[in-house]
């Protein structure tokens, strides 16, 4: 069977150091940092501290008027990447997608909603339209006409490195020929106030690996790579800039914000990337370090480097002094720096470094210099101990990346927290008085599973995820466990309380314990800490198809033999702002009620499973075209699922007439293909409407498959374009 090796054929970048690859490399070559003081928003306490802010007018650079600041940054980087790859997506059919990492998504814009509410007592929901982390994905997919698998992934500072790794997996597994992969993150009051509240910001600008380093500098930006399968790129005569030779991910399973002091998780991710690339450590010619400049991160990373490379650590540098730490976008920014370094055969320097730290005992590159480079490594480590490492190789090097092997997947356990009863929740002032009927999970009685002091800092969403994860399987310390628990909106209550507090108290008395819960991987990481799960740890976020993305990602970990067990799931919580904004938009009515809940399923290879509850025989992801064509959709589903085994279609229909008509049309088109009437069932009447609802659908599908002894198709459409289908067999 042909192996689809991923190669890079185009790149785009926007950062505080410049707009476009040329301008950014000129800044790097000249050693010119993009750090200046903050102008984007008022910061009473920290306004004079250096930050990597993009000061150009984004509209002037050609960004669309629609979208959040992150969306616009992502769009600008995507435009450059597409132009440099000289690719026409009309030639790709449904086989091109987009995969982006972000940490805050549209938070900067949604903060204006809270500011108006707090300071002027007015409810203006408009700025929250592009709040979701998946918004940039939708915008770019629509702009370039991409109909393949697409999602965002939000694992804090490793987000876009993990996104690039996932995109490579999409290509290797044959799901797509071309992927736009990277990340976008804008500055926000939340992260600005948050990192200051953690005392992790260096007031003089970051000095990675330096003896006197005192923290990071925040930044913002976006970078996008065009990833293609090698045969597709060669066939269309594209210029190949580099190979993506290897990638690896791991979790420290240690602490919500602090890295493991020995860097064991970081070392495991580097090891995994080397394994995937089939390279020895000695083959690596340069490392772009995560190197944030905090005392703990740099020391832990140096320890990890020594673990892997012993006393022969290759030349390395942190380039964060040029851009600031662009959080979810930094992995992608550093990936394009690595590819450009390979292309130019030059080593980028480490601004801010002056004096060697005896505790580290390593000295980074201090000035740009030429060097023969064949293989380079890029490290990204995030909150929660979520680590991702990429290896890029010169195009002339032979392709050796290990390919995945198809696996039969069994579900051997399931944890569900669904709504108990329909509760009426009063919306508290200052929102307009009113009542919304919700599908709430009520008081988490299972919270008794967690001891009170363990629970005190956990959000409702984390508690739900933790309880379902514990229930889903019997822990076996000898197993390698990967975790993919997605969320549409994350820990809303903690993020909301944190920003509300910053705005109302002008950055005084912040809430450092709430800030770490503002990242979407807060639940997945907490599960890993609780269970000691040190495999890949991911938090995909893709609106209504979030769960299916997590499912796909978990199966990948089994197919590449990076895990013995994958815990996959999704979780979302209700909060007052979500209820209020939804009410303002008329999203809720008698039939459509907001919901919340968590589901975690435990997956193993079928041949190794003793007690299989169900099998997952297909997962396919994509985007639908407009106008919606039910026949085309039925073809797409039939290409992934053998209809002769299917008895029931379980859809995400919810009582919203336009969407429900689409589901019904596809169900009847599938019936005519199957030559018999397939039963069409729905589940949202039980759980309510929320982004993780299809995870609840998955648990219903398992029940139906077992009860009716037939295959069940779980089919989900997201209003902004995503679609997913999976097949569950008894």
């Amino acid at each position, binding site marked *: 069977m042909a192996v689809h090796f991923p190669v890079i054929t185009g790149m785009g970048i926007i950062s505080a150091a410049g707009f476009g690859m040329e301008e950014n490399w000129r800044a790097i070559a000249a050693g010119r940092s993009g750090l200046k003081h903050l102008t984007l928003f008022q910061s009473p306490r920290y306004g004079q501290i250096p930050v990597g802010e993009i000061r150009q007018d984004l509209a002037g650079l050609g960004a669309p008027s629609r979208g959040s600041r992150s969306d616009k940054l992502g769009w600008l980087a995507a435009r450059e990447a597409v132009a440099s790859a000289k690719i026409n997506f009309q030639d790709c059919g449904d086989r091109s997608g987009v995969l982006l990492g972000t940490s805050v998504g549209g938070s900067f814009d949604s903060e204006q909603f809270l500011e108006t509410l707090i300071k002027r007592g007015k409810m203006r929901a408009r700025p929250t339209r592009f709040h979701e982390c998946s918004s940039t994905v939708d915008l770019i997919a629509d702009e370039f006409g991409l109909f393949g698998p697409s999602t965002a992934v939000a694992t804090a500072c490793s987000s876009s490195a993990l996104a690039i790794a996932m995109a490579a997996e999409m290509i290797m597994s044959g799901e797509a020929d071309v992927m736009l992969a990277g990340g976008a993150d804008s500055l926000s009051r939340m992260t600005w106030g948050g990192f200051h*509240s*953690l*005392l992790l910001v260096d*007031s003089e600008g970051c000095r990675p690996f330096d003896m006197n380093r*005192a923290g990071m500098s925040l930044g913002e930006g976006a970078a996008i790579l065009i990833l293609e399968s090698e045969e597709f790129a060669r066939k269309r005569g594209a210029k190949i800039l580099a190979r993506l030779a290897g990638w690896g991910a791991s979790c420290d399973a240690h*602490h*919500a*914000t*602090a890295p493991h002091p020995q860097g064991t998780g970081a070392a495991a991710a580097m090891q995994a990337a080397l394994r995937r690339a089939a390279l020895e450590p000695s083959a690596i010619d340069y490392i772009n370090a995560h190197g944030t400049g905090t005392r703990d991160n740099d020391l832990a990373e140096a320890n990890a480097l020594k673990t892997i490379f012993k006393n022969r650590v290759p030349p390395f540098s942190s380039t964060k002094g040029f851009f600031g730490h662009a959080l979810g976008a930094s992995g992608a920014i550093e990936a394009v720096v690595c590819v450009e370094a390979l292309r130019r055969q030059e080593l980028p320097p480490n601004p801010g470094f002056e004096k060697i730290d005896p505790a580290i005992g390593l000295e980074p590159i201090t000035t740009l210099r030429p060097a023969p480079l064949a293989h380079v490594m890029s490290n990204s480590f995030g909150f929660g101990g979520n680590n991702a490492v990429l290896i890029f190789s010169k195009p002339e090097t032979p392709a050796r990346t290990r390919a995945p092997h198809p696996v039969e997947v069994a579900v051997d356990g399931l944890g569900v927290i669904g709504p108990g009863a329909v509760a009426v929740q009063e919306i508290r002032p200052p929102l307009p008085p009113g009542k919304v009927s919700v599908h709430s999970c009520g008081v988490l009685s299972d919270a008794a599973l967690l001891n*009170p*002091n363990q*629970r*005190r*800092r956990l959000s409702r969403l984390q508690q739900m995820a933790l309880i379902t994860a514990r229930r889903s399987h019997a822990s076996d310390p000898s197993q390698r466990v990967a975790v993919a628990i997605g969320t549409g909106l994350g820990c809303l209550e903690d993020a909301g309380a944190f920003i509300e507090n910053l705005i109302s108290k002008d950055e*005084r*008395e*912040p*809430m*450092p*314990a709430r800030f*770490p819960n503002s990242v979407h991987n807060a639940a997945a990481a907490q599960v890993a800490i609780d269970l000691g799960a040190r495999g890949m740890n991911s938090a995909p976020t893709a609106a209504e198809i979030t769960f299916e993305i997590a499912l796909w990602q978990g199966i990948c970990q089994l197919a590449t033999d990076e895990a013995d067990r994958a815990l996959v799931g999704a979780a979302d919580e209700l909060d007052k702002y979500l209820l209020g904004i939804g009410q303002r938009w008329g999203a809720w009515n008698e039939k459509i009620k907001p919901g919340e809940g968590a589901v975690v399923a435990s997956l193993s290879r079928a041949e190794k499973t003793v007690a299989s509850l169900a099998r997952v025989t297909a997962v396919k992801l994509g985007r639908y075209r407009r106008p919606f064509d039910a026949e085309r959709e039925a073809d797409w589903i039939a290409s992934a699922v053998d209809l002769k085994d299917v008895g029931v279609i379980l859809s995400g229909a919810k009582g919203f007439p336009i969407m429900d008509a689409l589901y019904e049309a596809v169900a009847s088109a599938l019936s005519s293909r199957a030559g018999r009437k397939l039963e069409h069932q729905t589940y949202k009447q039980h759980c309510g409407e929320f982004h993780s609802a299809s995870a609840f659908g998955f648990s219903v599908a398992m029940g139906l498959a077992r009860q009716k002894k037939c295959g069940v198709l779980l089919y989900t459409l997201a209003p902004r374009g995503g679609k997913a289908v999976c097949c569950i067999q008894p």
Partner: protein
Amino acid sequence: MNISMNELKANIIESLRLQDITPEKIDDDAPLFGTGLGLDSIDALELVVMLERDYGIVIKDIAEGRPAFQSVRTLADFIAVKRPK
């Protein structure tokens, strides 16, 4: 200036949202971090916020606070010395 140990303990409990713990249960000299109360680095940051809010002491580098965070007694001594008069 002396500060009330009980008041300080109550402030700690409230700031850190400690559950099932009353001021009487906290020993003046027991370690706050690691063993004892078993606090971690995020709790230390909450204590930094508490010091500023309740006692007007601003800490910009966590290393400054570290000697003070040994026990309730060391914290009380630190506050007595650093508190703006």
